[in-house]
């Protein structure tokens, strides 16, 4: 099963994502903002990163940009969690190198389906 990093400043969302993924057998590491996420991504390896967009310290788009520049994360699926209204966010995320997005609100099943999809 895959190792997944979830980055979100909201602990309820983080817990939900983490719970859903680990229930499906994945190994999940949580990070509370972009800086924390980048540090964890640098010191460990992951098969997939799921990040919120609006976060203090470093937002999700900047995190994706930084991750994509790392050799280890060149081809890793990087997904962002965004709201239905964030059309420009999707574009900005894509430009930064995001693989795709999951639109909030989502339920655990939708999340799992999307993650399964990118993990192949």
């Amino acid at each position, binding site marked *: 099963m895959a190792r997944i990093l979830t980055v979100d400043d909201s602990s*309820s969302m983080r817990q939900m994502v983490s719970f859903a993924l680990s229930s499906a057998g994945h190994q999940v590491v949580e990070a509370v903002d972009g800086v924390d996420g980048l540090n964890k991504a640098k010191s460990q390896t992951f098969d997939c990163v799921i990040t919120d967009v609006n976060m*203090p310290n470093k937002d999700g788009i900047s995190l994706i940009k930084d991750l994509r520049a790392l050799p280890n994360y060149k*081809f890793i699926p990087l997904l962002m969690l965004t709201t239905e209204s964030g*059309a420009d966010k999707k574009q900005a995320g894509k430009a930064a190198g995001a693989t795709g997005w999951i639109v*909030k609100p989502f339920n655990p099943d939708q999340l799992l389906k999307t993650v399964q999809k990118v993990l192949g």
Partner: protein
Amino acid sequence: MAIDLAQFHQVFFEESFEGLDVMESGLLAIDCNEPVDLEDINTIFRAAHSIKGGSGTFGFHRVSEFTHGLETLLDQMRSGQRQPDQRVVDCLLGSVDCLRTMLEAMQQGDNANDADVARYQAAIDAILDQQNAPVSSAEEPAAHLPPAEAVNSAVESPSSGWRIAFSPRAQLLQRGNDPVRIFRELDELGELEVAPDFIGLPEFGEFDPEICYLSWRLELAGTVDRSALEDVFAWVEDDCDFAIQPLGAAQSCTDVSPQVSPEPSAESEAVAPATDAPPAKDTSDVDVAKVKTVKAKADKPKSAATIRVDTQKIDHLINMVGELVITQSMLGMLGENFTLDKLDALQNGLAQLERHTRELQESVMSVRMMPISFVFGRFPRLVHDLSAQLGKKIELKLIGEQTEVDKTVVELIADPLVHLVRNSLDHGIETSVERVNAGKSETGQLILEAYQRSGQIIIEVKDDGRGLNADKLRAKAIEKNLIDPQQQLTQQQIYELIFAPGFSTAEALTDISGRGVGMDVVRRNIQSLGGSIHIDSEQGQGTRIAIHLPLTLAILDGQSVAVGHETYIIPLNAIIESINVDDSKLNRVAGVGETFKLREEYLPIVRLQRVFAISGAKASKLSEGLVVVVEGPEGRCGLFVDDLLGQQQVVIKSLDANYRPVEGISGATILGDGSVALILDIPGLLRLSVREQYG
């Protein structure tokens, strides 16, 4: 897999309330006359955004709907499209309250007050409408309309299938996408045939493994919506060229022009009205201030069944337990085959055990401690609202917010503090005109300060207002029959009169400070926490009220005393002195009972053996025992006991919770030898003793 989202609700509520606090303090910090710090607005926006995201995910759609408007408004502010003015800020503040009430209701499983919600929603929509029409269409509106493609597909589909030309650009792989994933998804929609095109393939020696050279022609058979198809390509639409044609349109794949990649929203944006809210009309004039007073002020203490603890404290606790276990196993080994020559080691071990136990006790206590900022946090808003209501200019300063106090104190000190602050704003601090005439700065200052000193927490409420008028207080007290006109009182004693029941200095009760609770209730609340309240004032200069509270409510420094075979604990901070009194100094006074004279003062004597009906007390004459002089809120008295035993810290066990309230006893504790000792409640004891003799 079904996951019960309800398990995350508690966390969601907690973080939402925190988010609302962030929003509130952020909004209060906005000064509409000065340029706003965009980072501040961003912080407020993020909090709103998180609440919206979470509430949508966890099924609180009413909340996410309501937050949507707030978010839009904040987004306009942070992108510089809108300058915040006081009306907007007030409306946002009101909406924060409204959201809080909504969330509180949902937490309790109730429904929100829809009238309030609708009113705020209308107020926000009105603000949005007002400016939004000419504003360039933000990213928001498109979402509310059915996407333009959906309309197209209604015309084209159902089709028996689709022919797709798909040629990835070089960077597709470097975004973590994979053509195989797309094929797999398409295959789920219908029957897929894939034909690769090798045209772009370079010489073997020039292969770059990071680049995708292939392109594909795909045929998907089955009744598939065009929009479903486009969803599959949504992530890669910028990283590839692709074109879709219905099967059966008799064209060869090569004719399909890759340029006609779908443009998602250009069309829909052009049609979309700025918002789908109703036209503004007079809702834009909704008097936000009025709306604000309608909402239920959530001043009631929140029942906090859970406590948030700094992880460092937990780590420390675990560390201490580890140490304790090591010491215990060391002592166990020593005890197994103990010989007297190991006495030193045993004593060392016991000393270590004592130290670790004490440290463990301290760290456990610290878990109950919370920063006073939990209480102070509500005051910026309170002061903001009240000063607007009173038309006064007031600056609030919070000092020592990180001072830690017991959780119970945090819960119970809020109401008395609110009362003191209201008083200060209403009666203490003058209007700007009065202040200028008195030669003071136009803006009044209110300081809330907390600090720790010699085992006590001290909370001060200070203002630089008009101060107390001793003559006026005295006259009032005489008028209310609280003191005798002839009575000589020091300045200090006169100030203390405001804590007397039924005393109020305001000529007319206002709805700000005259809420039926007087300063006497404030004092009683603080005394019930084991604390005391002191007042100090200088006319024209201001007033300072200091609340002294014990550090913790779970542990007490006590003096154990013997009465017959019983042991009682007297709170150490109540004891003034212990003396031996000669029987000749004893008097009987009607209405008070036995008294003795101590340095020009007659103090009542409480004989514990009599009050608690203890047989076998050693001392019956005063000279045979000891009199412990104690001070309670209503004065001093002497407790007559057989002997003093020793001082120790005792852990308070509640009698109310385990048995029932007993007058004269505040609780019980377990002594070192395992026996139970009762802890004396001095004021209760005094009342009991008087009744004993005259009841």
